């Protein structure tokens, strides 16, 4: 039997049971479309997070005190309290020729007030470098001036919403705000930018690192941001930073250097796994569609008993009847999958229009694997009814007994 005749025969049969055929196609299409939409959601989340991370600044290393034992095991019980990182350490890091700039970070919370208004906000102590490393700018006034890192100076930059809360529509520049029991002069306001890496820069006051240390009465820094000259120099910069600190800390490796890439790839892995599992969950609906196909084809075989008997009488061997019935389920799942592909991509497009900020994008593997899974469930679940049809006794089938 020619393949075009097989297909034509199957199409004829599907056409003559319209409602059932449409319902099957719908089930398949919904399955495929949900695989596409759910994976596109997961992939969108991955891309979104990646974008957020790259807005952190490029070629960035984050140095924190203490060695993190990522290999597991008990932390040491006695001694070995990690040495703090100091502003002197930060200055020393600047000596590496692979390092473009460093920015210390001292953080804490303190009440900030202007006249009667008071807010408890996050205080960030850093240097002028912070602004270029983190790629933040001021909307008015200026950033912290360059000066010797260990010098305190009563100047600060306000986050945009903090400025709005304290000053309303008044100009804050040159005004003195009270930070706990200190006072400092507002020299700038950050851009109305919002969140960056989970930190709300709007609700923040930025001052010189040394001033913040005095405010919180500490000698250490919380983190150091190190920017390398280029992507290629990141490893060198990391080695330099580690050896500089080892030298300064009596030969102890007591810092942890994280690269943005490492964080990023961790998130990437997590979110890719999420996308896969979403795809897997959606694939269950394909399985359900496959079982529906099996059910419908079993009913079809029962309804078309005499037809099957006739085909046998006309000389169709078992395998030809299996072929005919399998082609029917394959057509159902293939057309259903194509419809689902259209629905899925259409739904994706609609989501993209309504949420332009979120990068909905079905990964390629999801497209072809949804279609592949749809086809194979159609074939696998079509096999049982097809064999069932082929095993019918033609005499009984034709006598209608």
């Amino acid at each position, binding site marked *: 039997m020619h393949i075009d005749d097989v297909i034509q025969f199957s199409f004829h049969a599907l056409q003559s049971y319209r409602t059932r055929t449409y319902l099957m196609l719908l089930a398949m299409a919904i399955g495929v479309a949900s695989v596409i939409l759910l994976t596109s959601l997961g992939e969108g989340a991955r891309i979104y997070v990646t974008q957020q991370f790259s807005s952190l600044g490029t070629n960035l290393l984050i140095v924190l005190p203490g060695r993190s034992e990522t290999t597991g095991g008990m932390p040491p019980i006695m001694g070995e309290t990690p040495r703090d990182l100091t502003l002197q350490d930060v200055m020393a890091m600047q000596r590496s020729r692979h390092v473009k700039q460093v920015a210390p970070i001292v953080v804490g919370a303190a009440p900030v007030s202007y006249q009667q208004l008071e807010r408890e906000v996050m205080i960030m102590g850093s240097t002028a470098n912070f602004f270029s490393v983190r790629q933040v700018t001021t909307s008015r006034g200026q950033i912290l001036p360059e000066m010797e890192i260990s010098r305190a100076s009563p100047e600060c930059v306000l986050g945009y919403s903090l400025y709005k809360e304290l000053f309303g529509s008044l100009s804050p520049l040159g005004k003195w705000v009270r930070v706990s029991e200190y006072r400092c002069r507002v020299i700038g306001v950050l851009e109305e930018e919002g969140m960056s890496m989970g930190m709300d820069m709007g609700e923040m006051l930025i001052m010189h690192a040394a001033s913040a240390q005095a405010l919180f009465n500490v000698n250490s820094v919380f983190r150091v941001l190190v920017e390398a000259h280029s992507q290629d120099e990141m490893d060198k910069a990391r080695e330099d930073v580690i050896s500089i600190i080892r030298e300064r800390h009596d030969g102890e490796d007591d810092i942890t250097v994280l690269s943005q890439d490492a964080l990023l790839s961790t998130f990437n892995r997590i979110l890719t796994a999420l996308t896969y599992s979403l795809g897997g969950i959606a694939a269950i609906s394909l399985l359900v569609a496959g079982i529906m196909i099996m059910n419908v084809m079993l009913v079809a075989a029962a309804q078309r008993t*005499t037809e099957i*008997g006739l085909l046998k009488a006309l000389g169709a061997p078992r395998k030809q009847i299996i072929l005919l019935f399998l082609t029917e389920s394959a057509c159902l799942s293939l057309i259903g999958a194509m419809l689902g592909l259209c629905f899925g991509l259409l739904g994706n497009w609609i989501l993209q229009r309504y949420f332009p900020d979120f990068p909905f994008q079905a990964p390629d593997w999801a497209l072809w694997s949804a279609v592949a899974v749809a086809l194979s469930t159609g074939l696998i679940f079509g096999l049982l009814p097809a064999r069932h049809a082929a095993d019918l006794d033609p005499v009984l089938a*034709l006598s209608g007994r």
Partner: protein
Amino acid sequence: MIKLEHIARTFKVGDELVHGLDDVSLDINDGEYISIMGPSGSGKSTLLNAIGLLDKIDAGRYFLDGTDVTELSELEQAGVRREKIGFVFQTFHLIPRLTAAENVALPLTLAGVEHEERKQRVNEALQSLNLTDRAHHRPDQLSGGQRQRVAIARAVVTKPVVILADEPTGNLDHASGIDVINILETLNKQGITLLLVTHDIELGERAHRIIHMMDGKVLS
């Protein structure tokens, strides 16, 4: 051409064994016209199904054109049905969604005959049965007699050596019945062996040879 030796076919109904065919031996020559008669339940259909290789037999040997077809595989038996045997049923068994022409073409389609040749042979078959103007009608748009003529066209389009007709007039009025028998007889005159099961004595007696059956046995 057809040689049956001690054929038996038993059905198990509950604990009882029913003898559909009981030690049947039969010789049928090329081009014969035979009617099979007997009371209901005497095994006429069972005999026809055995000859048509639709039903298996439990004992005995069956030679068709010299080969022992009981020894053949499922695939080979299907091939014998496709090439040598044409069936005509009481209830026509046309596929309702297909047109007359498509129904007639079905055995050729299954056999993988090329489009052009298929078309030509279907047209010839329809023409010889005066169905050309009904070629594109579906079965529900045809009369009973026309439907049976389509079924006969389908049986002969593969040029079989034997036609097995199980009460082909059973669902037809008298005139259409005579019409159908005339057609079958014409085919027989062209050389096809014809086996006809009928209850109608008048029709049965038109055959060259009459086989009487009773309780699964061939009487004469």
